[in-house]
């Protein structure tokens, strides 16, 4: 590195603040052709950024030192001449109105040492050059501020003529542009602009500030409530509460009689030391999922959802959509990820980002790109979906009809008779007058004897007896008509048809016998016992309860028990259709309401309870026959 032991000839200072004589620096830069760096501190040195130092009088120029063999040293760069100092009534940007993104900046000179900033500056000339070729006037601003002054730097295409030592007269800058950095609102300008230029007031900063204050000036109760509801910890606490209540609802058996709770959670020996039946019945834990405490918490969560969507997420989308430019390298460096690219053009970066799917906005030397705005919409979408589900659930809980009925093969029921309203908003419809006739009920079996599918062949008749629809339904295959849906849920054996001593046939009604789990066994409580496991096999026991034999209904083989000849003709099945509400009906038809797909223990209890109530069928000769 050449060093001088006398005063520098043609002194020149770099942006990083080191003083050299121009010939020596020039030679240094030529030797290090791949990276122009300051000999002392290795900062980037750009020739157009060098600042000449003019002393008094002429430069003492020693011709010998000017030229070295093989190298002709050009003239010293002229430096840059900023605009003439402005008049007093220029717009000042007060420090208080600064957007926090840029913050306070020290004087411009000290900033010049920053490598990234110089890179930004370095990005400018090429950018300017390229747009200068289009003949447009370029306006770009970089604003720095200290406590007192505003320093704005302005370049136009005319200034480019000063680069590389071309001597042209400096034209007065055509525009003065002082911009208050603010979060967004400024439209992107890529080299546009007229000779007139723009003078922008800094109102948005003040407006932004007043907006912040305004949100705290709560105009009455609704805003306060809204603010409280959209509090995140509250929402999390609500969700925890709902989860805990639901868990409790699965541990405490639901829908039982109070006696059950008296026994299971006695007061003198409470579970966990305090949990007795009083807790359960007063708080409504026996019907947890429709209890006031649970529904109240759900409503609160719904209110929080609405409040949060309104106050937080919709504005977030608005903010995310706004373009916010960062105007200083320091602000850029403060981001989570930051990097510096020497000798790069911001336009190239913009093009690459566009190719990667970003939406790019370029304003002067500043670039702002975003991607994934859809991600801002996702929480709103999810919250809205949850609110819709809640609304739908509420509507169906208050405004629908349900019913379930067990109908033996060959019999009818009227839809309206078996449906009951579930809430105060339920109104019956025209299709309630339809009569449903069960033509046939049958089951498909696998080779191993297990049930494959249940089928019910149904016909719908209107008031005049005309058949309007006929369909065979099965599980997962419901029938839909006029807003009513009929589901195949379950089946039961309703009667055994037998011949006794060649008399009959007799229909013996069957009652279910619960053994374990979900298996159902049907037995006939009389002198002889017949056990129907399913429609395929009937097991017969004699009067003492000893096993007598097994018969399949199709075989029609007789069996002798205790001197009586029995032929099992058929097992008459009845199909269970879930219509979502249950009703109770008296009469000769085998119609029993029951929630067959829930709490199956409850079903058998209810059936037994009903069986004890229904009177005997007149034309049956067997003793102790109970029709149910």
């Amino acid at each position, binding site marked *: 590195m050449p060093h001088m032991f006398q005063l520098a000839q043609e002194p020149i200072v770099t942006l990083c603040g080191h003083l050299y004589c121009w010939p020596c620096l020039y030679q240094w830069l030529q030797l290090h052709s791949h990276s122009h760096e300051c000999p002392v501190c290795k900062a980037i040195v750009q020739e157009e950024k060098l600042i000449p130092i003019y002393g008094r009088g002429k430069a003492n120029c020693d011709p010998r030192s000017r030229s070295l063999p093989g190298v002709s040293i050009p003239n010293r760069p002229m430096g840059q001449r900023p605009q003439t100092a402005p008049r007093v009534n220029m717009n000042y940007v007060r420090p208080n109105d600064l957007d926090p993104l840029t913050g306070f900046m020290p004087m411009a000179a000290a900033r010049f040492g920053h490598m990234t900033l110089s890179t930004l500056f370095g990005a400018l000339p090429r950018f300017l050059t390229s747009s200068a070729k289009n003949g447009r006037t370029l306006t770009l601003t970089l604003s720095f501020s200290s406590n007192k002054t505003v320093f704005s730097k302005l370049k136009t295409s005319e200034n480019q003529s000063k680069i590389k030592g071309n001597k042209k007269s400096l034209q007065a800058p055509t525009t003065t542009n002082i911009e208050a950095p603010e979060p967004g609102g400024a439209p992107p300008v890529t080299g546009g602009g007229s000779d007139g230029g723009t003078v922008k007031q800094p109102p948005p900063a003040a407006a932004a500030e007043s907006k912040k204050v305004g949100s705290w000036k709560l105009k009455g109760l609704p805003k306060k409530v809204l603010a409280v509801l959209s509090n995140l910890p509250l929402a999390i606490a609500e969700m925890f509460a709902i989860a805990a209540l639901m868990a409790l609802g*699965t541990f405490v058996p639901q829908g039982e009689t109070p006696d059950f709770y008296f026994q299971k959670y006695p007061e003198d020996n409470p579970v966990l030391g305090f949990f007795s039946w009083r807790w359960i019945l007063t708080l409504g834990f026996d019907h947890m999922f429709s209890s006031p405490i649970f529904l109240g918490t759900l409503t609160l969560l719904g209110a929080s959802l609405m409040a949060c969507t309104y106050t937080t997420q919709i504005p977030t989308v608005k903010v995310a959509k706004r373009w916010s430019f960062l105007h200083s390298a320091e602000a850029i460096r403060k981001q989570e990820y930051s990097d510096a690219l020497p000798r790069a053009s911001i336009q190239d970066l913009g093009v690459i980002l566009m190719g990667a799917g970003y939406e790019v906005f370029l304003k002067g030397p500043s670039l702002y790109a975003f991607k994934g705005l859809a991600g801002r919409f996702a929480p709103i979408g999810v919250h809205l979906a949850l609110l819709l589900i809640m609304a739908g659930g509420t509507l169906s809980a208050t405004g629908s009809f349900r019913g379930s009925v067990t109908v033996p093969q060959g019999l009818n029921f009227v839809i309206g008779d078996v449906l009951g309203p579930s809430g105060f908003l339920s109104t019956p419809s025209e299709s309630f007058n339809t009569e449903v006739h069960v033509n046939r009920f049958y089951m498909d079996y696998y080779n191993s004897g297990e049930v494959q599918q249940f089928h019910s062949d149904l016909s719908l008749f209107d008031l005049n007896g005309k058949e309007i629809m006929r369909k065979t339904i099965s599980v997962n295959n419901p029938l839909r008509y006029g807003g009513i849906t009929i589901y195949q849920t379950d089946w039961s054996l309703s009667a055994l048809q037998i011949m006794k001593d060649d008399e009959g046939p007799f229909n013996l009604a069957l009652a279910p016998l619960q053994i374990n789990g979900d298996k159902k066994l049907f037995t006939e409580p009389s002198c002889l016992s017949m056990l129907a496991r399913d429609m395929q096999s009937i097991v017969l026991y004699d009067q003492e309860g000893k096993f007598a034999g097994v018969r399949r209904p199709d075989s029609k083989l007789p069996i002798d028990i205790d001197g009586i000849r029995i032929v099992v003709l058929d097992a008459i099945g009845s199909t269970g259709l879930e219509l979502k509400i249950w009703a109770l009906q008296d009469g000769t038809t085998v119609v029993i309401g029951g929630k067959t797909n829930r*709490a199956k223990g409850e079903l058998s209890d209810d059936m037994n309870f009903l069986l004890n109530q229904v009177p005997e069928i007149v034309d049956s000769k067997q003793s102790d026959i109970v029709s149910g």
Partner: protein
Amino acid sequence: MIFSTLEHILTHISFSIVSIIITIHLITFLVDEIVKLYDSSEKGMIMTFFCITGLLITRWIYSGHFPLSDLYESLIFLSWSFSLIHIIPYFKKNPNFLSTIMGPSAIFTQGFATSGLLTEIRESTILVPALQSEWLIMHVSMMILGYAALLCGSLLSVSLLVITVRKKRKFFSTSNHLLNLNESFFFGEIEYMNEESNFLQNTSFFSPRNYYRSQLIQQLDYWSYRVISLGFIFLTIGILSGAVWANEAWGSYWSWDPKETWAFITWIVFAIYLHTRTNRKWKGRNSAIVASIGFLIIWICYFGVNLLGIGLHSYGSFTFN
């Protein structure tokens, strides 16, 4: 009956603990940067994945229905999902920690499924009428995939908690449960720290090891968030498709069946996790705690409810003799 239930419960508890311990152990591996065994575990997992795929396809063909009709088949599907999640980053050339979690999980789930505990239901059974629907494929597979991803993510959070807790405690405090538990695994680390701490007592933050550890914590946090988000999506789709299927089959979208309720509770807990991550103060430690709670809740939802044996989802129940 009681003893078999107790045995079953103990099996699950030990299963979970062993999963966690194996996870910690393998994280120790990573921290010590022993990479020699890395390749073999990757290749082993790929082979496992193909084996389980073959098993599922065979069951599918043999029984004629999608192999997801009872607990045993769902367990196999779960281990399949684990191995799937394990090898996807491998194909994307993404070196990360999922393999550490997924490998042992798949091994354990598969081992449990094929162990002697469930022999009586290992034969392929026929579908009951309620399950004969196209929705079976969608609903159950989404749920199991969701469980797998959520388990993975919550295990990552558990390991994050472990590492964070270890970092905060002075390593020489003797009355330390964690220290005692992990001492057998972290022997090498103890010695290393012994040497270092003499001159790095207060500036331990700047040692390369601690830098690496905070990098690890960051990575764990990041990956746990991503995997749990994916699992959350699967879980949501599974619950929604289950509700629609229930409407088709039984006439009501939601009937507060224990299994449905617990799936909803799981969903809520992971929604809480995602919400805690939006708050900058709670991000990190607290969200990891929530995800760890979620780990337990998934097991309750998947296995615990089946133990009760009631309700609509009773095909998943089983008994021990």
